[in-house]
């Protein structure tokens, strides 16, 4: 009891403190619940929401992944594994590519690490399964037939085996400077 208030005020406040919660809960009883019932109602996710991981393709329909292992190396829970292979024209690709979504924490570091923008996170998060093995996805289920967030990007127009041209003929590249012309 607060000494400064006196017994009557304290008793009144105590009684009010016990009775008021009942009124509050009774009032809520007749409110409409604010629950969003999930399977029927799906909230629009933010643009950069991180969900299921996919392997995208470049505009010409080729696989973007060059099996550089950077995503696998950066993955904090080591859920990505792959084996690299080389095509006859010298272009690298992933022989097999495996993501264990049972371990994945959807941090998005693989997407940041990827130099070819191949691995991307989508905002599909509904991927529960009855069996843990169903959460281990192989290359065939991971690969999609579009470019994801970056539909126009093609790594091989900037680097890699396809770019064996004369210096300066490269996209986004200035003509080489003639060092001799720099003489004073």
């Amino acid at each position, binding site marked *: 009891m607060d000494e400064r208030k006196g017994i009557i005020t304290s008793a009144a406040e105590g009684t009010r403190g016990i009775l008021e*919660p009942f009124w509050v809960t009774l009032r809520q009883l007749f*409110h409409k*619940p*604010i*629950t969003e019932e999930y399977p029927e109602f799906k909230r629009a996710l933010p643009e950069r929401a991180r969900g299921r991981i996919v392997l995208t393709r470049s505009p010409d329909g080729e696989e973007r992944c060059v099996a550089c292992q950077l995503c696998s190396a950066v993955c904090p829970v080591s859920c990505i594994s792959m084996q690299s292979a080389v095509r006859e024209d010298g272009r690298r690709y992933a022989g097999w590519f495996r993501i264990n979504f049972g371990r994945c924490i959807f941090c998005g570091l693989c997407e940041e690490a990827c130099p070819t923008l191949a691995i991307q996170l989508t905002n599909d998060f509904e991927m529960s399964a009855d069996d843990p093995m169903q959460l281990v996805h192989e290359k065939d289920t991971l690969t999609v037939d579009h470019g994801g967030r970056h539909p126009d990007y093609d790594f091989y127009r900037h680097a890699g085996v396809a770019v064996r041209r004369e210096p300066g003929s490269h996209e986004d590249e200035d003509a080489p400077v003639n060092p001799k012309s720099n003489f004073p």
Partner: protein
Amino acid sequence: MTMWFAGFAVLLVKMALVLGVALTGAAYLVLVERKLLGRMQLRYGPNRVGPFGLLQPLADGVKMILKEDLVPQGADRFLFMMVPAVLPLTTLLAFAVVPFGTELTIMGQQVPMVITDLDVGVLFVLSLSSVGVYSLALGGWASNSKYSLLGAVRGVGQMISYELPLGLSLVPVIMLAGSMSLVDIVNAQADMPFIVYQPVAYVLFVLSALVEVKRTPFDLAEAENELQAGFHMEYSGMRFALFFLGEYLNMIFLGAFAALLFLGGWHGPVLPPFAWLLIKTAIMPILLIWIRASLPRLRPDQMMRLCWVWLAPLALLNILATGAVMLLKG
């Protein structure tokens, strides 16, 4: 001999009826609690299994049966396995003295609508409620876990505190009715329920009952955020479900007990006696759910202070006042 068999058959039918109603009631009380509590917290509560979630108790039962039955290392195995049965057992036994209607006449025979009309019905119920606490005390002890033990210790402390005011609050009713048989007590309320004469005793009884069922604000033995789940922390599957069942049966039973002692039992206009008893029984569980939604948990010392310093002396004064009035009126 035929009469004996007929009587036995009638008894079996009555027992099946009471058991069925009590157990179904307990299962659906869980649903009612979750839905009501949900609505009070701006949620829906369970609404997925069946229409409006009405099959949720069934789904819960199936889930509980399928769960693994764990016995913790170092637990007193025999006690641990036996003890969960105590609480539902004692509560179901207490239902035996609950009369649920006037006498029926079937083929010229008077059939009382109660399993057994004990002369000491009230005493029987009170003693069973004390035995029921053993499930908590021994369950917490046998689990070999410090949280369970703390819960059990608190539960026993709580039992010692509430039993006195609970018993004393019923004395004026027994004085007014002049009998300890629940049938006689209900018959004594034919014109006027005892709550009119004994509002103080009713309030004392509800408060003590609140302590007895060990729910918020007196769920010290469970105290989720201090003791995880208190005395039943180590229990799983159907053994846990038995504790749960016992708690909800106890809520229903206390509702029925309050209805019989204070609210006039099956007496009421228009509706049949059984319906009146059900309606009056439902008051207590719904009140308990409402209280759970509204009030926070008390500390153990506050609970004991309430019981010993306020409830017990008030109950004694109430007995004194009732006796004085009865003496004056002759």
